[in-house]
């Protein structure tokens, strides 16, 4: 009865999330998960996850979305795809993790203080503005937003790279950037973000 509002929301969203996952190519395969643990055993970072990928699927199917959202699991996925190629049920677990990241961001439900969504957003901004990623700028902007002190720590490394000409200062902007954004605009608003109507970022787009 005394559920936190966020938890209640998580419960309500359980079905929305499941449907969103079913909708990605091959997404409904999670119905056929046999909970064998191949994914988690194959995952290079599962030891640091609050819940293993197998447990994430179990929680999703049980409608316990709060577990999924509160965990650091999806943002620890490195896209190594071992789980995907080994899964005996043919589940594209990595793709599922991407979808969960998008859902978290779209619904504003990411873990507090998580850096990874910030990095991803900075990445997206840069690509949308320049068409390409400029590593120096990306790193700078992320650290300025999250932990500026860390930049100092990285100075010696950075100087080395600069000395070897490996840190160009100015970003390259592609010629087709405006037409690229026109293309993106041609897709409906809801589609540009995730596919999740109601999510705040869908409105932004």
């Amino acid at each position: 009865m005394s559920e936190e509002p966020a938890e209640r929301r998580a419960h309500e969203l359980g079905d929305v999330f499941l449907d969103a996952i079913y909708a990605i190519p091959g997404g409904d395969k999670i119905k056929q998960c046999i909970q064998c643990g191949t994914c988690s055993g194959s995952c290079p970072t599962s030891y640091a996850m609050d819940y293993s990928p197998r447990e994430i699927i179990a929680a999703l199917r049980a409608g316990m979305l709060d577990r999924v959202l509160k965990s650091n699991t999806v943002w620890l996925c490195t896209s190594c795809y071992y789980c995907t190629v080994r899964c005996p049920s043919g589940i594209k677990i990595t793709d599922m993790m991407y979808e969960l990241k998008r859902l978290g961001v779209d619904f504003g439900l990411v873990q507090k203080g998580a850096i990874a969504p910030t990095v991803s957003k900075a990445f997206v901004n840069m690509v949308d503005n320049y068409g390409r990623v400029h590593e120096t700028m990306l790193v700078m902007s992320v650290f300025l937003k999250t932990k500026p002190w860390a930049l100092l720590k990285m100075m010696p490394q950075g100087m080395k790279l600069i000395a070897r000409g490996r840190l160009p200062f100015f970003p390259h902007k592609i010629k087709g950037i405006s037409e690229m954004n026109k293309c993106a605009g041609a897709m409906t608003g809801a589609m540009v973000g995730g596919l999740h109507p109601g999510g705040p970022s869908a409105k932004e787009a």
Partner: protein
Amino acid sequence: MAEKIGVYVCHCGSNIAQMVDCKNVVDYAAALPNVTVAREYQYMCSDPGQEIIKKDIKELGLTRVVVASCSPLMHELTFRRAVEEGGLNQFLFQMANIREQCSWISENKEMATERAKAIVGAAVKRVAFQEPLQEKKVPVNPNVLVVGGGITGIEAALQLADSGKKVYLVEKEPTIGGYMARFDKTFPTLDCAACILTPKMVNVAQHPNIELISYSDVTRFSGYVGNFTARIRRRPRYVDEEKCNGCGLCTEKCPISVPSEFDCGLGKRKAIYRPFPQAVPNVPVIDREHCLFFTKGICKVCVKFCPRGAVNFDQKEEFEDLQVGTAILATGFDLFDASKVKQYGYGRLPNVVTSLEFERFSHASGPTGGKIQLKNGQMPQSVAILHCIGSRDTNFNEYCSRVCCMYSMKMAHLVHEKTGAKVYEFYIDIRAFGKGYEEFYKRLLKEDTVFIRGKAAEVTDFAQTPAEKGKLIVVAEDTLLGITRRIPVDMVVLSVGFEPRKDAADLARTFSISRSQDGFFLERHPKLAPVSTASDGIFIAGSCQGPKDIPDSVAQGAAAAANALSLIDRKEVTLEPTVAVIDEESCSGCKICLGLCPFNAIVFDDTKKVSRVNDALCKGCGVCVAACPSGAIEQRNFTDDQLLAEVESACASAK
């Protein structure tokens, strides 16, 4: 002539009635031309259901009957019999399938009812054109062909032979015994496999009613139920089976040693060899690939030492035709190739072995004399057994191989007993469904076998801690704890699953039988006809139908024998009269049909210049009927008139 047709719509409990408005269908049928009576009933196949038909035939003078119920594959024979008992020729009956292909597949009652009406209407129209036919009876040849000499084929052959029937047992290897001959112990009772198998093998060898044809295969199979001809190809052994007394001197003296297939390449055999000491027949075979005579034209040591002059390098491949009435296929399975799953390191990491290799290690007459040992000859102190290798996996085979859980636990017990090593079982689910199996699982738990619920993710030799140095590390999520564990062990055994034989497709073609989606042979009915096939007189038993353990295989071998016996003891079988007939008046003698018939059932009469069908050979496919440019050929019970009537009505009556 106006026919009097009776139409009977079956509810099949609620199977049909809940999706098809049967009353509506009956009303529709009653209004069709020539329909005298239309009724509905709960279960038409029941005795009272059949009685209704019989009574109506007698009292209303019906001349044709249509039953709308399940698939003809289920009950066509039942109703034909009822019609016959009612006094009508059984071919004046037509079945309308409104269950499998109508009610069961529909979600909309209105649409399903319309479809049912169309199907019934078509049957009513068709039945009016049907003609009385007489079934042909032919004698059954009592000889039986059994293909495959594993435990299943052995059981089938012995059962048949003991009842006095002649059995030809064809085995493609030099010896019978199959996989079971390679196993050490058998679960859950832990009988020694050889102790219970070898006596049966000897029985086969000595049985007066069994002709064992080893090192041979079936290349062609033709004819029809009760009267088949099997073409056997005998490969040359280069040793005369009649002369050889199995003394083994040739093998002893042969200078060439090569890896033994029987021992999975772990042990050696000679170029003239018996796969194992208790081989049946107890006659060696010469391996042409390695024999010095065949490769270099020298040596002949075996010839020199054979006291009976049995070695014969001039033997040639021979073909022989056998006449049999029935055949039992017990061709078994292949094991999954573990090297396909790269993450377990089979073939790359020494001491990762398959379960069959383990059996050979553990076998008293195996390459290590029954010692379970590592590549360096030492005894393992810890062993991991990985379940479901190649099974329950969409990347390889989706099905469960059924036996691996149990044989894995048997291996765990043997490791424990013989080495005292710590044993880990990595499993997804334990499937211990047979008699005494769950009890065996409990016993293993008591023996301190460590069961880790989680499919192994990988096996690596990269050590991350000093304790892992020099070990194989099995990485898996312990799903009951929700943590990934790294378990260092000395030996990893991969419990490989079953697969259809590589040549299963060819064999299915040779015998005109089907395969299920997984590639194993398809039974006629999964519950009620598990050893029959869609081809009359051809039975399947054991793991060629799907993975099975020894008790189930033996049961199926015996079941197939009983099925064959039941057919033989009928003495004669009735053949479907749905053969082709040629109207000599209309035949133009163009001979197109001759080239089309796959059974050479059509002959050309040179004097009358017309074609004629030999109805003993005709199997009633109807290909010639469709091709005849003069429309001179008809297929009984599938005549143009009948099919055209059915087609016309199928379209017209639907809404």
